[in-house]
């Protein structure tokens, strides 16, 4: 296997660089947007202890996004802050499911957020994130493998946290069970997008940046089946589009308009 140790080396091979940047955008944008949704929850979680843990996870996750944006910066994609704040919706590579609003309402006024959506989304996402990170430990791009190692140190606890929530709720009241099932059904219609690597998937595998989509998906499904007591009897889909192809919803526009608000006041200013 060819090992690429630095950004400069990666830049020598145009095809390699293209696959690598595509993969990094997916990793960065996924963590960035789910962390944004997490930050909207602050002060609204079911109890104070959860507010403390969830905001810690959210903060760590933003830190992970920063690591990936920095790798992109090293590869000549532009400053990390610009990549995070100043790319239009169609340039974003996060999965559509992750941009979905936490519920009705606005995070400042009347936020009718749904904890069942958050528990299911965070659990499914963190389960996949772990599968992906473990695959990335073997990545041909050494700076990415090193980053995956760093992220895994924190991420293990994030997954454990959401797994605990799933286990507690799915074994409790009928209402909790049915709320969770509703969100699992919904996830099955949308989650495929998260599980995909986009148009460069084959190239990524060829360059040994990451394993194949099939391998990742199988591992994810096995892990999920280990924990969830309810698994829908239908194929996984991406009914709201493919974020890996730059297809996005109004929910992403809302997110970008919010997270950009101050940045947009003066892009050249130092904040």
């Amino acid at each position: 296997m060819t090992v690429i140790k630095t950004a400069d080396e990666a830049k020598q091979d145009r095809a390699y660089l293209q696959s690598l940047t595509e993969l990094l955008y997916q990793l960065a944008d996924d963590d960035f947007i789910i962390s944004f949704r997490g930050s909207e929850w602050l002060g609204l979680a079911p109890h104070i202890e959860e507010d403390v843990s969830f905001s810690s996870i959210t903060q760590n996750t933003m830190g992970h996004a920063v690591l990936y944006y920095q790798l992109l910066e090293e590869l000549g994609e532009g400053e990390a802050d610009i990549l995070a704040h100043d790319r239009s919706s169609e340039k974003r590579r996060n999965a559509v499911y992750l941009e979905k609003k936490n519920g009705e309402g606005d995070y400042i006024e009347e936020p009718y957020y749904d904890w069942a959506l958050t528990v299911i989304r965070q659990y499914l996402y963190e389960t996949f994130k772990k599968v992906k990170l473990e695959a990335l430990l073997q990545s041909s791009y050494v700076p990415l493998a090193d980053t995956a190692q760093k992220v895994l140190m924190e991420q293990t606890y994030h997954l454990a946290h959401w797994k605990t929530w799933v286990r507690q709720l799915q074994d409790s009241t009928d209402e909790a069970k049915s709320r969770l099932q509703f969100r699992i059904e919904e996830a099955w219609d949308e989650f495929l997008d998260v599980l995909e690597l986009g148009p460069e998937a084959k190239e990524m595998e060829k360059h040994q940046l990451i394993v194949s989509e099939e391998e990742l998906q199988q591992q994810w499904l096995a892990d999920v089946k280990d924990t969830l007591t309810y698994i829908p009897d239908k194929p996984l889909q991406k009914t709201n589009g493919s974020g890996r192809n730059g297809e996005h919803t109004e929910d992403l526009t809302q997110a970008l308009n919010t997270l950009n608000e101050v940045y947009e006041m003066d892009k050249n200013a130092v904040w």
Partner: protein
Amino acid sequence: MYNFVEHGGKETSTINEDPVKYEQFMKRIEAGEKIEADDWMPEEYRQTLIKLISMHGISEIMGALPEKEWTPKAPTLKRKLGIMAKVQDEMGHGQLLLRVAEDLIKPYGKQREDLMNDLLTGDLKFHNVFHMETRTWADAGVVGWLVDGAAIISQTNMLDASYGPYQRALQRICAEEVFHAQHGEAIIMELAEGTEQQRNMLQDAVNRWWPALLMFFGPDSASTTGSSKQEVTTKYKIRKSSNEELRQAFLDKYLPRVFSLGLTIPDETLRYDEEKEYWIYQQPDWNEFKKIISNNGPRSKERIRLREISYEKNRWVRQALAPAPAYS
């Protein structure tokens, strides 16, 4: 972040205590001993602590909300990480303090949920500064820099408080607040040295926050707002300095910094009296203060509404987590 502000309530000093136990208790306090949760304590002491600490705790939690408005909007990745860490700390302080308060209310058969309910009914107040609007990103900076700066001064005053569990919680809280103030100062510095728009935004925020910052330390004496717990908290060695001494310490520390950044204070009468060695300033409107802490401030209703929504929307989660059979 918080400062204890009296808001009326049950008078407890008339309760008859066992004089022998009371004397022993006061001897311990005088000797600088720490009182622990299971120790005997006079009713007045317990009630004062409950008010102080539950209000402190709930203020930390309500205090995360004004900054939360700017957390998703922080303009750079560094600022996003900074403000996320800060609001998480505030929630953590709230949790730490509510645990301390829970031990104190236990003899009354009360628990955390009662405190949260008291917030929703208006029986448990939260600090005046967290009823205020955070209109721009500069407000997020001012909250970190000056509000947390004020909090450090008022909490440092209680670092040797006679109640052990509170005193220990404050050690950690104060250490973290120092980082918050630095985080706030970093935001302020960029704005102060930035574009005209940024400087104007900052000055506007300072102008709007000034009265709330003066109010932060509470009235000088009971005569200003009708009641004050200063004397009781001092008697039991919970605090050292008076409200006015703390306010003067704040002005001493921060006014030179404010002026050195080229900012002004919206008070033409503000000056330092060299002879008497204190700041002369325009009193804030203490009637407005009373109005604010009675949940009639600029954003009181909206902030409490957030807690209400969270309480309602998550009812099913509480029921699911409760030991079976589950009740609300």
